């Protein structure tokens, strides 16, 4: 039996009891419910094709298909639920190298997704670019929003550039944009915002969806100058394992910025912990 929900005083997260995937987020303060399916996929890195010999590499993201492949091949995710007073978590295992903890701390008005990805297997000869994708019912009209190098939030439109007529030749890569701290989608009423803990690439490949690239491991050089494939190895000579967090906010369009601006500050300038053995030092109030 898979877990059905976790909840604190602000948010409820529902899971599909059959597949274990996240399936709905509810903002209890505003009585908002939004179906949200979230899972991990990989794009198969291009090694070049008839149109152009361009391979995916350090500089260039170029999948060989617009359809990413689900990491949980059977479409079922094994899960484990931990419910306590201060935290409720669902641990999701997508594969031997991809997992996630969906977490609600007491008092927090957002959902925390802590993902762990890697080492990406490449023994099959395919470079892989891993994404976390959110699918919702929001009517987004080909629009999504990303921050731009830590500056203003910019509207992005799929297959469109505001200052020239675009002939789109790369339906996925041509719609990817830098995400430095946040990406969001919205309709006339509601907004789904995802805050990142590091710079990533992100997009909305179809209406109501939002995705972020969390890791990649490639086997070919893209011939743009670096001269080697992006196949970084860890200390144990395997591919790198990365762990990061996405914070997910669901709110009305009018009040979403009140939440994501403050939360992004907290993420960017997070408190730092120092430890000392024993009783440690005492501090005067001053």
């Amino acid at each position, binding site marked *: 039996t898979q877990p059905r929900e976790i909840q604190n005083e602000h948010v409820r997260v529902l899971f599909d009891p059959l597949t274990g995937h996240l399936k709905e987020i509810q903002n209890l303060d505003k009585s908002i419910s939004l179906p949200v399916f979230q899972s991990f996929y990989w794009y198969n890195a291009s090694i070049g094709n008839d149109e152009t010999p361009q391979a995916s590499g350090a*500089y260039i993201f170029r999948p060989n298909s617009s359809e990413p492949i689900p990491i949980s091949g059977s479409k079922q995710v094994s899960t484990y639920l931990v419910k*306590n007073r201060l*935290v409720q978590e669902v*641990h999701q295992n997508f594969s031997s190298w991809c997992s996630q903890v969906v977490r609600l*701390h007491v008092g927090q008005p957002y959902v925390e997704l802590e993902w762990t990805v890697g080492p990406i297997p490449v023994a099959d000869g395919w470079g892989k670019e891993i994404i976390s994708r959110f699918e919702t019912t929001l009517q987004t009209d080909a629009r999504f929003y990303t921050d731009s190098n830590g500056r203003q939030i910019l509207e992005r439109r799929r297959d469109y550039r505001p200052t020239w007529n675009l002939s789109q030749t790369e339906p996925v890569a041509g719609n990817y944009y830098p995400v430095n701290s946040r990406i969001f989608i919205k309709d006339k009423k509601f907004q789904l915002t995802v805050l990142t803990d590091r710079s990533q690439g992100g997009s909305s490949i179809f209406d109501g969806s939002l995705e972020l690239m969390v890791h990649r491991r490639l086997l070919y050089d893209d011939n*743009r100058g670096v001269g080697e494939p992006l196949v970084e190895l860890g200390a144990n000579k395997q591919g790198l394992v990365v762990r990061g967090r996405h914070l997910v906010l669901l709110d009305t369009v009018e009040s979403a910025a009140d939440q994501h601006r403050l939360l992004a500050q907290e993420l960017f300038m997070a408190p730092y912990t*120092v430890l000392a053995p024993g009783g440690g*030092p005492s501090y005067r109030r001053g």
Partner: protein
Amino acid sequence: PGDSSVLREAVAVAQHHDAVTGTEKQHVADDYARQLAAGWESCQLLVANALASLSGSKENFIFCNALNISVCPLTEVAGRFTVILYNPLGRHMSWPIRLPVNGASYAVTDPQGQPVPSEVVPISNFTHRLRGDGSSAMRELLFQASAPPLGFSTFMVSRMSRGDPRVPPAQTPAL
């Protein structure tokens, strides 16, 4: 003596577009990482000096760089330790603290000596796999800590033994 210039230089070097975007050669990536690690090590001394100066006592301050994968040799073995939380924001902050531990129950007190609600939760299997033999902790101590704007808070943590009147009734996590 602590020195922040080592980290300043490392961060300055890492402003190069190859470092920002990850388009550098592997041996250059390794060197960026080496410089940043050396810079942070030097800054840790600086922070420890500042804390010692503020408290008026020289302590053995510990910086656990691998807390994101639940590795911290001090909290895994110590029966009593102090958590110092620095808040770089200009407003009051409340933040969840997770520390790897091996005990079953702990008492946490805030800077005023008041008890802080805490609990011990299991570490995920993913984290166990990730750490390899880098840590023995099976659980994490979790509590909500708060800190003033641009300031520190200190929290005392002590492991409780069975029969301790402060031990809360055991809670069985729903599995």
